[in-house]
Structure formats: C-alpha cells, structure tokens
C-alpha cells in the first residue's frame, strides 16, 4: 500500500522543515549576518545609516521579547490558561544570573544556563500550588507570585534592593540574542509539533475529555509552565547582561502586561504570531516616541498599548495569527502517503 518515498523526502520528513523552512531559516540567518556586517562596516544609504546602534538596540530588545512572548504563548495560548506572572520569572533569571557573575565572579556562560534553570525551578515551585486552581484563580496566583518576587528583591540588600543592581559585564550582543532567540523558537516549535503540543491543545479544548484519553492533565500543565519559566529565565539572564543594570520596577505586572499585549496582538497558539506581535509593538512604540515628542505628547505613548489591546479584543479577538502559522512552519498533519482508501 505504501508508495516508496524518495530519499530527499525522507530527509525532509526527518527534519520536518521542508524547503520553506530552510528558506526561512536562510533568510533569517542572512538578515542577521547582514545587520552584523552593516554595523561593522557602517554601511549607509545616503546619510541614513543601515545599522546604527539605535536599530541594533531595538532589534536586540525584539529578540529578548520574542523569547518571552513565545514562551508565554505555551501557557496562555496552547494550554489555554491565563497566567500573568511572566515578568516574575524574567526577574528570577535576571537576578540569578547576576548573582553568578557579580557575587560568585563566574563566567557569563555559566550564568546564562543558571538564570534559565532558576526560572524553571521557581516555575516548578509556583506551578505546584498554582495548578490546583485554574481560570481566574490561576491568574490571581501568578499575579501574586509576580508581586512577591518584586517585593523579595526590593528587600534583599545584597542584590541591590530597591536601588537596583548594576555592573554586570556586557556579554549580551545582538548576535547572541539572535542565535538564542532562533534556537528558542526552534525548540518551542518542536515541542508544539509533538505529543506535548497536541496534549496542551487538547487540555485547552476540553480538559475532561483529555483526562479520559489517558492524559495526566496536571503533569502536562506543569511541563508547559516550567518550560515557559525556563525561557523567561533565559531572557532575564540575557537582559541583565545587556542593560548592565536591573531594577525591581522593570519586573512588575506592568512588564507582564506589555508581554500580554504583544501576545494577544500576535495571536494565541501561534509562534509566528508571537514574533509578529513583538515586532509590531516594539517598532510602533519606538517610532511613536519620536513622533509624539515633536508635539510634546511623549507621555501619551503609554496610552498606546492598552489602546491596541482594546482594539484587538474588539475587532480581532484571536489576534493577527491566532491558531495559524506562516507557511514556512510546516502543517501539523503529515498524512501517511497511501492509495485512496476503499470500503
């Protein structure tokens, strides 16, 4: 019954990217290299610099936010829960990695995984009580956790307390963020297109039916939450060693809200949507900064993101890409190649 697959097709199935995937990965890598070259040799068109430090700065922030929003999407998009404490894990990663570099004087390459693992461990400890609840209650538990983390940091003098904490070595560069964000997206995509992603969606669609399919619902929820916290911790470690200064006020629920706006704009359960949402919001807010300050309206910038959220909810509640991906992410289904069925 099976038709024999040509060799290249077997290879393709093994990597499960398809030529569009390679094309996309190639374009992505080419763009990164181009930006690097442009920055290195200060290419310009006329008087416009192609990659001035300001653009690179924004691209770096986009990369870090992509990691944050794509991982948040696991819990809020695929699993369908409403967790609003993501900035808390960002804080854990940022401070844990800074402890490694500033207090223990270890290399950044030790601090980076430590930040991510610290996020995962704290995520596990939060998930244990948090997933005894769901819906609104889960939101409150995670929000409470976010506030607790910020309060703990403010009261720990050894890590700077309310004054913030600076002096981290500048180890995070645009290219590092580009590579880490790319790898994170590949890992998240692999997870989503596996049994794990399938089960998360099933839990979102109908928890009782999932349980009746033999799904250990609690376990799968924990896995999603811990993975999301892991990547938030990773982003925190990158961020601390990019800004070289961290302050408790950057990790409050306001930060989580920013991430949620990007997530909802891009669309739930869509990784390409997360990338899109982050990019649009960052570019929008940054370009408004210049425009608004010309009219002395700079503080109105903060009105924009709530406004965007309201407009999305009213006009396109599923977000730009809800439940869909760009074509270069392969379809979820790979149906067996066989003859048309009879009888």
């Amino acid at each position, binding site marked *: 019954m099976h038709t024999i697959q040509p060799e290249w097709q077997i290879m393709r199935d093994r990597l*499960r990217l398809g030529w569009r995937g390679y094309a996309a990965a190639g374009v992505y890598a080419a763009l990164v290299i181009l930006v690097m070259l442009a920055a290195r040799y200060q290419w310009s068109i006329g008087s416009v610099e192609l990659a001035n430090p300001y653009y690179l700065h924004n691209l770096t922030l986009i990369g870090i936010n992509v990691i944050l929003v794509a991982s948040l999407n696991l819990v809020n998009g695929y699993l369908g829960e409403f967790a609003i404490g993501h900035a808390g894990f960002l804080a854990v990663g940022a401070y844990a990695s800074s402890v490694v570099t500033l207090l223990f004087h270890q290399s950044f390459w030790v601090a980076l995984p430590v930040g991510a693992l610290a996020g995962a461990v704290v995520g596990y400890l939060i998930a244990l009580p948090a997933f005894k609840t769901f819906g609104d209650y889960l939101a409150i538990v995670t929000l409470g956790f976010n506030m607790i983390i910020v309060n703990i940091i403010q009261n720990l003098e050894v890590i700077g307390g309310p004054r913030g904490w600076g002096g981290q070595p500048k180890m995070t560069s645009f290219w590092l963020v580009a590579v880490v964000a790319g790898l994170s997206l590949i890992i998240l995509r692999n997870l989503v297109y596996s049994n794990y992603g*399938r089960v998360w969606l099933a839990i979102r669609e109908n928890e009782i039916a999932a349980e009746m399919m*033999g799904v250990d619902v609690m376990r799968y929820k924990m896995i999603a939450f811990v993975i999301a916290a892991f990547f938030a911790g990773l982003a925190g470690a990158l961020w601390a060693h990019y800004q070289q200064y961290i302050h408790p006020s950057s990790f409050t629920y306001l930060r989580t809200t920013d991430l949620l706006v990007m997530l909802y704009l891009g669309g739930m359960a869509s990784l390409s949507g997360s990338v899109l949402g982050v990019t649009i919001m960052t570019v929008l807010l940054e370009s408004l900064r210049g425009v608004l300050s010309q009219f002395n309206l700079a503080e109105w910038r903060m009105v924009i993101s709530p406004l965007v959220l309201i407009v999305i909810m009213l006009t396109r509640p599923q977000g730009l890409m809800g439940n869909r991906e760009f074509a270069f992410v392969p379809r979820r289904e790979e149906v067996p190649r066989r003859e048309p069925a009879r009888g």
Partner: protein
Amino acid sequence: MNLLEVRNLSKRFGGLLAVADFNLDLPEGALYGLIGPNGAGKTTVFNLITGVYPPTAGSVKLAGRELVGLPAHRITQRGVARTFQNIRLFGGMTVLDNIKVAFNYRTGYHLWGAVLHGPGFNAREQAITEQAYELLRLFRLESRYDQLAKSLPYGEQRRLEIARALATNPRLLLLDEPAAGMNPREVGELVELIRWVREKFQLTVFLIEHQMRLVMNLCERIQVMDFGETIAEGTPAEIVDNRRVIEAYLGEEEGA
C-alpha cells in the same frame, strides 16, 4: 470470567444519594445496557467507573484489579474508554489530531525526543499518524482528517468520538447515550456500527441509552435505574414486562 465487577458502588452529593449500591457483573465480550429515566444516576455510574468522581463507597474491579482510588487517566490507561452524552471532542483541533491525542501515554519518546525531533521521534510520530489514520479509515472519516472536529456534521462527530475512544486501545467501552439526537435511520446505522466495533476490536461494551429500539435490539442484558437505585435487571424481554420498570417510565397507575 467477568471483565468488570462493580460491588455496592454508591455516590452521595451532599444530601442526594445519586447512586445507591450499584452492582454489575460484566462478562468479557458482553454488551450490556443501562437505562432509566432522566436523573436516575446513569451517567454518575459512568463517572464513578472512569474515576471522574471518587465513589462514596464500593469497589470497581477491572479484570480483578481495583480501579477505585486511581486517577481518571490511569483508569483509561488500564483499558476503560468512554464517550460522552454531550459530545466532548477537541473542537479546535483537526480530526486526525483528535485521535492522536489518545496515544499520549505511549508515544515512545520523552521530552528530549520532542525537543530535538530526532530520528526516533519521527519514526514514532509516523507510526502514530499511521495508526490514527487507519482508525479514521475504519470509521470512514479519513477524507476529513485535516478538518477541525467542530466543523463535522453531528453524526460524524459521534463516530469520531467512538473512534477516539477506541484509539486508547480499551478492553471496556462505555457509551453514554450514543444515539442522542439521531434520527431513526442514523440509529439503525449506529446499531450496526456498535456491533461491528465490538466484533472488530473484541470489546466489552456497556452503554447508557434512552432509545428503547436501540437497547432492545442491541443489548444482551439490561439494568434499569431509578433515583439512584437498581430497580430491575434482566434480558430485554424480561425488562419490557417488568412492572417496576413500566412504573418508573410511565408513572404509577392511579389507584392501582
């Protein structure tokens, strides 16, 4: 040899005794029915067997092993599958993915395999896809494989739910009002489908149903519940003549 043995199963919700001393001996390969008026506690019995609720008292043994106290997903993994009275498909997922979810506890790869998408992972995923697709073919749903489950017509949703239950590789299949909302022609097809499924997958089947035609045609023995209690048990012929059953369904005769 009895596949399922239920002894004195009871469930109390506050002041309401939803199920009282329910007993059942279900031989391997049997096809039994459970009937009763609305609110008699039939679905609660299913929920107790499958572990959705813990029983207040009693025991449920599958092939001699106790099920009470196990979490619901463990009971499914032991070989009990069910469908729901109000269809509970994964509406926003494709038809094929609905089936593939049932393989979650025997994928043959772990988190690392899923993160890396290595060769072992792809071989296992391919095998799961093929088994799921085969099941869709048996249920004549293969042409729908990439459509969202919620977009299927009602009858096909019912079929998909049965197919999904079978994908967990059960020994015992519990069907909760499989004919609800079906017209007479569809009920006829369903009777054939259930017979065929039981033959093909060598299953033991226990079903709840309101439509007498289906129950009388299909079931070897019937148990009747009313207000949580078992009021009759026997072959279909015995049940239709049973006085208490007639009273439960039609009400007592005035002054009799």
